[in-house]
Structure formats: structure tokens, C-alpha cells
């Protein structure tokens, strides 16, 4: 069941989107789409069914915090777990993400093992794995 989950990878750098998608595929989640900022991500989330969002924070147009806030405000989307994968290493950002309802927080640069651990942990908590 878990392997059929559909992921949305949000990052303004195409290199990072490819890396995260490839890693997700390696750890068993091959269903993934991409968005280059929060605006595009929100549009895709509202027009398709996703089970998991992996999002950067520092992006143009709509950053990761704003995207997280929009997702949590939306009745249809608020249950989708959002894992922040970001270079923002300030403690206040981590606390803010947690307060806003992020399901997890990974600081770049990260490893495949870290991504795998966090994704599986979140899915286990939600009873999806």
C-alpha cells in the first residue's frame, strides 16, 4: 500500500527535485510529481491526489512556510503530511515549521538514509505503512 503513495516534490532547484525523486524511487516510492514553487505545488495539490509532500522552504513566489500554511488551512489538503527538506538551519525556522504542522524537517545536505527514515517514520505514525 505504502509504495503506491503519490509524492509531490517541491523545490526551486531542478537538481534537488531530481535527487529527491530518485531517492524516493530507490526507497520504494516511484509515484512522484514535481513543483518548482509553492504556487505551482498548491495548484497541483488542489487538482490531483497526493499523499505526501516533500518541500523546500526558500523558494520564489510562495515559500515553503506559506505553502505549509495554505495546506493546513485547506480542509481537503490538511491531512497530507509535509516533510520540509531545506538548507534553512536556524532553530527558529525548525520550531516554526513544527508549530505550523510540518510532519518532519530535514536539513540539507542530507543522506538517503535520513530521507528514508523520516518518510517511513511519518508514514508509520499515520498508519500508512
Amino acid at each position: 500500500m505504502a509504495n503506491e503513495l503519490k509524492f509531490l516534490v517541491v523545490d526551486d532547484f531542478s537538481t534537488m527535485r531530481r535527487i529527491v525523486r530518485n531517492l524516493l524511487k530507490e526507497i520504494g516510492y516511484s509515484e512522484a510529481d514535481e513543483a518548482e514553487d509553492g504556487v505551482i505545488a498548491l495548484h497541483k495539490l488542489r487538482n490531483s491526489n497526493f499523499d505526501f509532500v516533500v518541500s523546500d522552504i526558500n523558494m520564489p513566489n510562495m515559500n515553503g512556510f506559506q505553502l505549509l500554511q495554505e495546506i493546513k488551512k485547506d480542509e481537503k489538503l490538511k491531512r497530507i503530511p509535509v516533510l520540509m527538506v531545506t538548507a534553512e538551519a536556524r532553530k527558529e525556522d525548525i520550531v516554526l515549521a513544527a508549530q505550523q504542522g510540518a510532519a518532519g524537517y530535514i536539513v540539507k545536505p542530507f543522506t538517503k538514509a535520513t530521507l528514508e527514515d523520516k518518510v517511513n517514520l511519518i508514514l508509520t505514525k499515520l498508519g500508512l505503512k
Partner: protein
Amino acid sequence: MSDDTATTPDTQTPGNLSHDVHQRIGVLTRQLHDSLNGLGLTEKVKTWAGELPDAKSRLSYIARLTGEAAEKVLNNVDQAKLHHDHIAKETRRIGALIVQDPVAAVAKGHVMNFISDVEEASQEIDKNLTDIMMAQDFHDLTGQVIAKVVGLAASIEEQLIQLLIVTAPLDAASNRIAPEPTPAVQPPVTTALQPVLAGPAVNPESNPDVVKSQSEVDDLLASLGF
């Protein structure tokens, strides 16, 4: 700037020249000071003074990260090539054994050993390829840092052009268009929901406000009950 202090070189004594240079420097300094104040740039210059060393450490960070990424890629390519060479060599050896005596090649376990070797090498090569892919994350991290340094350079350039316009010599000034008053620099709107983002921590060891590793992130979140 007035031209009345100018004298021709052949009529100057060393003492006069020195006095003249000092006077000119004094005039320029006063003009620069007045212009900076007039443009409201004094505070800006103080900020630049603080930001330039930061820009320097950001550029060092880029050099370090790109260097490490290149090193990581080359090391992984070396390892993958070793595995690949081993498999190529073993393939030729097993091929020859099978041609020579297919039954013996299987019976003596050469074929099974080879299959096991291939599987092991494939896993190692796959790991090397993943590491090479992960090494490309420097593009994202350095891209963010470069954007910040470019922003600082653009800001300094813009303000220096303003300064140049205001302090242009009078003959040039007579032709110039009056500069637009410098708008007060508006700080980005920040709310609790949209903090000013800092980007990658280029020197986390010296900053207690940033985490230094993923385990610190996990500890912080755990302390908040997550």
C-alpha cells in the same frame, strides 16, 4: 569641486604639491561624507562593512562545497570503475572456462561464484551512483549562497552609482539629470509566518542559532514533543 587649487606641474615645489594633494583629499573626503549623509547612505555603508566579510565567508563556503562535491564524485567514480573492471575481468575468465568445459565450470562452482560476485559488485556500483547523485546537491546550496552575494553586490553597485551621480564634477553635473531621491530602503515584510530566510548556514560552528547536524534537528523537534 573647485579648480582654484590646480597648478601646473612645472611651477610646483614638492611642498606645494603635498599641500595641494592634502587639500584635494580633504575636499573629496568632506564631499563624500556630505554625499553619504545626503543620500542617507551612512547606515548603508555600515551595513556593507558588516556584510562584506560575510560575503567572503560565503564565497569560501562555495569553494569548499564545490571542491568537496568534485572530490566525492571522483572517489565514487574510481570505486565504481574498480568494481566494473573486476566484473569485466571475471566475465572473460568465466567465459573461457565455460567454453573449455561447461559442466566443470558449473560443477566446480565457478559460475555460482561469478553470479555472486556480479550481484555484490552491482550493489556497490549502485551505491556509488547514488553517492554521485547526492554530491550534486551542492548546486542547490551554492545557488542560494551565490544569490545572496549577487544581491549584496547589486545593492552596493546601485548605491555607488547614486553616489557617483551626486559627486560628479560641476561641468558634468550641469548636463546631468537630477537624480531621483533615493527611496528609503524598505525592509522585507516579515511576519511570524514568513521569516527572512537565511539560506544555508555557511559557518554553523560559530552561530549558536543554527543547527549543525540532522541529529540536532531531531533533538530540537523531540524537545518540542514531535
